[in-house]
């Protein structure tokens, strides 16, 4: 009986120590944050947080939607900036609802790792929060009025996720970045969103090496990059054929394989891509016979190979590798990887590309037969 009583008391004590009503803060007594932006302006850091107005229902706009406000905190250090921000807040900031973390280009050029390391010690912060950089002034980006009255944090997240789902973009989350920052010699990219004509648009990618910005890849030149980093990459190409005709073809990445191997001349990275392609639009005048299909497919493979090759060339240009070759190499040759300086070794490695595609005429009408 005494043992049972002791057990019950211990359980209760454990409960009291582990959690308690003194820890409880009701959801409406917190400043729910949907976006955090960090900027470096001259010698001071600036925090921006986007907060929905929920108090007494007064935060709604004229359409009944939630009105979001931006609060800022400034300081010579992150701690001072945060203290400045806290001093302006009526309730504690809750970071568990952050949808997007925006890092300004100036912060990226300085050092993003200083801030991102901090995220590890914030238990509320979701590790799947999308991270973006911006080349627009942060105030300008946050002043955008997104469609459907959603917050800027949601708008950026939705834009990036939609493009990723459609195979046209790459996403980066805080957990991935933290993992990369912990690893030596690992470079990575962060999507860049800007304000364009009053809208939010994903315009390119910032290349990060050792916590600093090492370069910028505009979205128009990032097709090959997306093929490496988005397993469902999907692009459309206008392919000439038959001398004067054009067909628009949609190519979807089916599989990607990177196989490192050692040759007499050194390390070789055999990279093969397989695409499924379908004809979307074409001249109705000319039928797609076997020759035409072969010609289109051949031309498509060349275009895809050119884009993928551009992505590889960009890594050489920036002097860092972020296309996932390091993972493939480490898995195949763990001992060699441990011994080598990956960054230097990669620059000397040959990359052999193989691009194949299977073209579907698209199930369109057989004009030959119609004639």
């Amino acid at each position: 009986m005494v043992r049972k009583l002791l057990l019950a008391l211990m359980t209760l004590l454990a409960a009291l120590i582990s959690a308690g009503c003194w820890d409880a803060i009701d959801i409406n007594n917190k400043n729910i944050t949907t976006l955090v932006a960090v900027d470096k302006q001259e010698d001071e850091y600036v925090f921006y947080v986007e907060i929905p107005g929920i108090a007494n229902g007064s935060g709604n706009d004229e359409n009944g939607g939630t009105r979001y406000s931006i609060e800022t905190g400034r300081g010579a250090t992150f701690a001072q900036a945060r203290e400045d921000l806290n001093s302006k807040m009526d309730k504690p900031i809750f970071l568990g609802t952050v949808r997007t973390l925006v890092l300004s280009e100036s912060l990226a050029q300085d050092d993003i790792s200083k801030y991102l390391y901090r995220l590890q010690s914030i238990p509320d912060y979701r590790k799947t929060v999308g991270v973006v950089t911006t080349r627009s002034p942060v105030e300008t980006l946050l002043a955008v009025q997104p469609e459907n009255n959603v917050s800027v944090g949601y708008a950026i997240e939705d834009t990036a996720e939609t493009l990723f789902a459609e195979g046209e973009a790459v996403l980066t989350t805080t957990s991935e970045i933290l993992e990369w920052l912990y690893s030596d010699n690992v470079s990575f990219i962060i999507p860049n969103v800007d304000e364009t004509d009053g809208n939010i648009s994903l315009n390119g990618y910032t290349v990060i090496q050792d916590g600093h910005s090492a370069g910028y890849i505009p979205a128009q030149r990032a097709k090959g990059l997306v093929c490496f980093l988005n397993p469902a990459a999907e692009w459309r190409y206008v392919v000439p054929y038959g001398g004067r005709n054009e067909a628009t073809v949609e190519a979807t990445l089916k599989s990607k394989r990177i196989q490192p191997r050692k040759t007499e001349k050194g390390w070789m990275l055999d990279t093969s891509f397989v695409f499924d392609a379908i004809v979307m639009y074409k001249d109705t005048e000319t039928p797609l016979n076997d020759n035409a299909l072969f010609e289109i497919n051949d031309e498509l493979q060349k275009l895809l190979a050119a884009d993928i090759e551009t992505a590889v060339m960009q890594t050489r240009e920036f002097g860092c590798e972020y296309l996932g070759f390091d993972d493939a190499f480490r898995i195949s040759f763990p001992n060699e990887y441990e011994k080598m300086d990956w960054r230097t070794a990669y620059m000397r490695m040959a990359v052999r590309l193989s691009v194949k595609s299977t073209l579907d005429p698209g199930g369109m009408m057989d004009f030959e037969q119609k004639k």
Partner: protein
Amino acid sequence: MNRQSRTNQKIIIDIQQKRIGAAFRSIPFESGAATAVYIRELTDIKTLGELVIAPLEAHTHAAPPGAERAAGIVGTEDCRVLSDTDSIVPLLLDGYTVLLLSGDRRFLAVDIKHVEKRSIPTPHSMYTMRGPRDCFIESIESNLSLVRYRIKDENLRVCNRRVGRRTKTRVSILYIEDIANERIVREVKKRISAVDTDGIIESGELQAFMLNRRLDLFPQMGIVERSDMACGALLEGKVVVLVDGSEWALVAPKVLSEFLWSCDDYYDNKYLGLLMRVLRVIALFISFAVSSLYVAIVSFHNDVLPSSYMIAIAETRAKVPFNALIEVLLIELIAELIRESLIRVPTKIGAAVGIVGAIIIGQAAVSAGVFSPLLLIVISISLIASFVPSDYTMMSPIRVLKLLLILATGTFGMFGFTLVCTIILANLVSIKSFGVPYVAPFAPFNARDALKSFFYSKSGAPMRPIFLRTKDPRRSSKKKQ
């Protein structure tokens, strides 16, 4: 006056002195008399006249007959010759008519009982879309006849007991001898015999006496008001207990999962049955846990929800002056008030009370900012879900435990929620219903029974549940080829 007449006179005086409301009717014979003693309220007077008095009067020209001969003269089926005069008063109280004969020291006990009873009604608690519409009433004879009508098996056993020193309530224990587990039958009989009380009015009282421990929260016997369900239980190998004066029969043993099955499960499409069973499990969880989870999420673990939901919840709570725990406790109190008042008030004004409670108070409370609209939705769903399980006796402990869970969650967050759930689970797995583990067939796990409890209709199942350990495990006569 002979010696026996004097003895009978003394008996009559004794009965009169006891003031039990007995009536006396003397039938004079040539030498002596026969005296019918009965309680008017419990006796069918017309039958008494036609089948007892009139036949005896036809023989008044001779000496009063002996007991055996009188039994032959009396035209009733149940007519016993007895000699223990101490049993006369109990027999009278039980509705028997006692015939004292001056020519015999023995007497007759004639059963011409007449008790006011209602006709067989339709079920009012266990509705079903399909199935018989008759259900038990307060008369144990009527209830037995309903069971006998459906099960014409010579192995159907009916063991009678008297419970209650003062009420002497008749209790019938029913089981099918070549199916039911002997240990279970013995245990039921033992527990009924061990009941020590002055009176049992309703089967619920007997049910409380038959718990493993007096403070047990979960019911260990099921209740049925439908005779077809009672017959189904008998065919499954269970023991049914009928209590005179109660329209609810008790079923033993009953495991936790069976409290969630409805009478429709016996007759309906088995796929629909599966869907409904899953729905009832979900309903049980919702009614038990959803208000506590609301407290946990709103006060402690905000981050488990998507941000958009969090913003929506925060907006609905913006004007609420209470913290989530107080808010939930208050609204649970109001919900219980409405539920209790709806049970007590006449049906005709029940709807009005429901409208006042649910719409006017709810709407006004939200407008006044006392409660958040989301919580009203949560509590309404919880309340509706609590009516889904067919056996309401299971919902009583759930309602009690729900309050405990809300308090624990409001104090310790999900830790408190987990702690209380663990304690309840530990308690559930330690309970046995008449020797059968309460959470069978899931603990101890039996794949066939567990699957069957979800996938097959009970009546269509070829085998009886293994956990009942019946004498005859098969319902079908042979294996399917």
